[in-house]
């Protein structure tokens, strides 16, 4: 019995260890899959005509003739929407209609004055026109259909009157006729609600299709274009078709989301069929095409990363990496050489080793503090530089942070060179320095390269140390080493938490992080492969 229990415990334990590894792999997959998958969609997606318009306007990219043709085709379908909205808006807006009638009446009066009519006739026409105006205004303001009908009928009686022919007053009748025709399907009592619902409808349409061409161009770039991607267009379309409301069904219970067709708000009106129209013709209006937007990697972006890509961030990351490698590379290799070649029981070596370990353990944010206090506020001003965060200070801070990685990897690489190499070289009469440079260093180079790659990946990914020493969320490309820069790492933070606008464009959020992870992973995988090769080579000897 005890034997069985022991065996079962053994098996359970083995299963647990296997499980933990499976969980480990699963964690990696769970973290990477959404980020990389959604990030991928920043580059490969179905773009709409709005995307191509944006590319042409902001980045001067694309075929103008082709776009004009497409635009003409899509406007053909869009026109109906704009026209219907305009008319509907006009008819439910009593105030504007009244103003318009009054305006026409006034013009008519002036016209009469100019005609030099006899006084009596003038007076008569003037009062008649005023009467018409008043009746129209009553009709416009009334929510009772009967009153409207009566008044409009009264007005239209004068339509055939010869005295109004070819005068500006004729417009009054046109308005009256239009109004009479259009309101047949409108519940006049709900004019306020219509106006509110229409406003919302219009806003969503602008988000979907871009601003109405008859209105002025919006000042903000982000408002100039409709849905640039088909998946966003579908989301907005859904928003357009369904009205979502959070309602409390009974007290004390959590709110429930209830969605009803938005078309119901406009039941019976001309707007109602528009919903089906938009749904059915969305492809004709947006002309989606498969797009491979590789320029994502070089484009700069509009504020909030709403449009455009991660060009400045990639450049900033590369610059920062390069600048810090300038410091890390020589110091790292020399320190590693010193540590590897000198007897290790030395007191000074022990101190250096301890310093490296301490340095590796210092929290990255403390490096940020140190970089701020030392490089930004002390060292750079000491040499006459500007006392502000910039690429140089960020690179120095990152170099201090990454030094242990470089030293450890290089030292290991140098130590792994077989002793016989060194002995052979020394035996041939070469000095220590020559032996190191001509024999040991080339042999250790792949390992050192691994260390360099790992340091680069660390530098590229670190965020906390550069928070106060040179990273900015958004800005122009840096001109020299004394400018701050955007980086992928700080950008990833900002786009996830700092920037409310960016949450509207999840593909750009994920795109930035996916770029960072891809960069770091490519470097790390290269390092892993290189290390595997080295170890195979060393085993072969």
């Amino acid at each position, binding site marked *: 019995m005890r034997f069985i229990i022991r065996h079962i415990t053994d098996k359970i334990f083995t299963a647990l260890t296997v499980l933990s590894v499976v969980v480990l792999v699963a964690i990696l997959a769970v973290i990477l899959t959404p980020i990389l998958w959604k990030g991928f969609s920043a580059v490969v997606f179905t773009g709409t005509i709005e995307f191509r318009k944006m590319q042409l306007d902001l980045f001067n990219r694309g075929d103008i003739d082709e776009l004009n043709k497409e635009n003409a085709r899509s406007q053909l379908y869009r026109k109906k929407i704009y026209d219907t909205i305009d008319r509907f808006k006009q008819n439910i807006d009593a105030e504007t209609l009244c103003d318009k009638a009054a305006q026409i009446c006034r013009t008519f009066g002036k016209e009469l004055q100019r005609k030099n009519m006899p006084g009596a006739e003038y007076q008569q026409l003037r009062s008649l026109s005023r009467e018409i105006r008043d009746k129209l205004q009553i009709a416009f303001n009334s929510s009772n259909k009967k009153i409207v009908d009566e008044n409009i009928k009264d007005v239209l009686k004068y339509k055939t009157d010869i005295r109004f022919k070819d005068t500006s007053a004729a417009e009054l009748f046109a308005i009256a006729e239009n109004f009479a025709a259009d309101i047949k399907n409108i519940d006049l009592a709900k004019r306020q609600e219509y106006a509110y619902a229409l406003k919302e409808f219009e806003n969503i349409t602008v988000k979907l299709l871009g601003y109405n061409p008859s209105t002025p161009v919006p000042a903000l770039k982000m408002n100039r274009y409709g849905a640039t991607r088909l998946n966003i267009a579908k989301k907005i379309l859904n928003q357009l078709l369904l009205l979502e409301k959070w309602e409390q069904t009974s007290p004390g219970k959590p709110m429930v989301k209830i969605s009803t067709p938005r078309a119901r708000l406009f039941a019976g009106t001309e707007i109602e069929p528009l919903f089906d129209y938009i749904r059915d013709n969305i492809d004709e209006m947006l002309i989606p095409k498969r797009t491979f937007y590789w320029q994502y990697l070089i484009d700069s972006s509009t504020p909030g990363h709403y449009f455009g890509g991660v060009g400045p961030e990639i450049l900033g990351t590369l610059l920062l990496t390069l600048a810090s490698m300038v410091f890390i590379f020589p110091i790292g290799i020399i320190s590693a050489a010193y540590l590897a070649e000198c007897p290790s029981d030395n007191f000074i070596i022990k101190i250096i080793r301890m310093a490296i370990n301490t340095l590796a353990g210092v929290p990255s944010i403390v490096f940020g503090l140190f970089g701020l206090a030392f490089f930004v506020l002390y060292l750079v001003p000491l040499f006459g530089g500007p006392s502000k965060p910039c690429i140089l200070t960020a690179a120095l801070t990152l170099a201090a942070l990454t030094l242990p990685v470089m030293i450890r990897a290089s030292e290991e690489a140098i130590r792994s060179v077989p002793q016989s190499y060194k002995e052979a070289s020394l035996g041939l*009469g070469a000095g220590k320095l020559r032996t190191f440079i001509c024999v040991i260093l080339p042999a250790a180079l792949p390992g050192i390269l691994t260390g360099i790659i790992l340091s680069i990946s660390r530098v590229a990914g670190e965020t906390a140390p550069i928070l106060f020493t040179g990273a900015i969320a958004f800005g122009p490309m840096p001109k020299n080493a004394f400018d701050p820069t955007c980086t992928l790492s700080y950008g990833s*933070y900002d786009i996830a938490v700092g920037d409310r606008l960016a949450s509207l464009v999840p593909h750009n959020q994920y795109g930035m992080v996916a770029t960072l992870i891809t960069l770091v992973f490519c470097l790390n995988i290269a390092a892993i492969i290189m290390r595997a090769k080295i170890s195979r080579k060393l085993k072969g000897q």
Partner: protein
Amino acid sequence: MEYNKAQMNTEPKTDNRSLALTALEDFKGFAFYHLGRFSLFAVSFSTVLIVLLIFFFVIQQGLPFFKNFGITEFFTSKQWYPEAGEPKFGALSIIVGSLYVTIAALILSVPMAILTAVFLSEIVSHKIRNLVKPVIELLAAIPSVAYGFFAVLVLAPFLQTEFGLSTGTNALNASIILAIMALPTIISVAEDSITAIGRDLREASYGLGATRFETIFFVVIPAAHSGIIAAIVLGMMRAIGETMVVWMASGNANQIPSPWWDLTQSVRTMTATIAGDMGETSKGSPHYQSLFAIGIILLAMTFLLNIVSEYFLASAGKNSRKK
């Protein structure tokens, strides 16, 4: 080519040159050797210099705070209102918040890490081990900001909708991600120390009829305990010093969770406070100095942990060398 050159240099061109070096040549060689060695040493010593500079500058900026405001309030009060008219600098809940998420992260990660380390060193063949190792390396390579991104945009909404929490950015979220981040460190150090235990111990145990579980649990792990402790301490260092993840995922609410086991409340950590507040301070203000004071605490904590880990690593090294 290289060989020929070397030969030409070592063989004297003139025959009548004596083999013995002149005094000047001897001195030159001596001077060059020691000068070279010294310059190498000087460069290598820069690491020590950086460490000293870090300590010096952080302490120099942070010490005035302790002088002006005293230590008692900082460590005992929960009131952190650095920008108020009468500023209050009670960092208790911030320090507790740091320890809170760190310990929670360790509770989550240590069992799994040790199981994985055992799996890699004791159970599987070399081939599978070589397949799993890159996974661990990649987990370690993911930038912390990417982990933070995942915490905010994927994990937080998931926690909020699936568990009905009021907010997805809380101690639980931060602890989970910190646990994942600490895993690679703990696994690799623990695995090294378990592998370093000699075959003789294992063979003796198996020879006495112990099962694999008994061998690992009662022989191997006790023998490797100092390495495993060092691994845990290193993981703790990683977790306590992590900034981006806790800043993004912990919710940054200045409170101590009550009841104390309620992980679903938001907390605030030392690192996140420094990262979040530094942008609002002006140089030399009490607020600015207080952030450096927090930096001193962080530095002291990690330095202590570092010494502890080195002690255990050294004793682990001694143990395995004894065999």
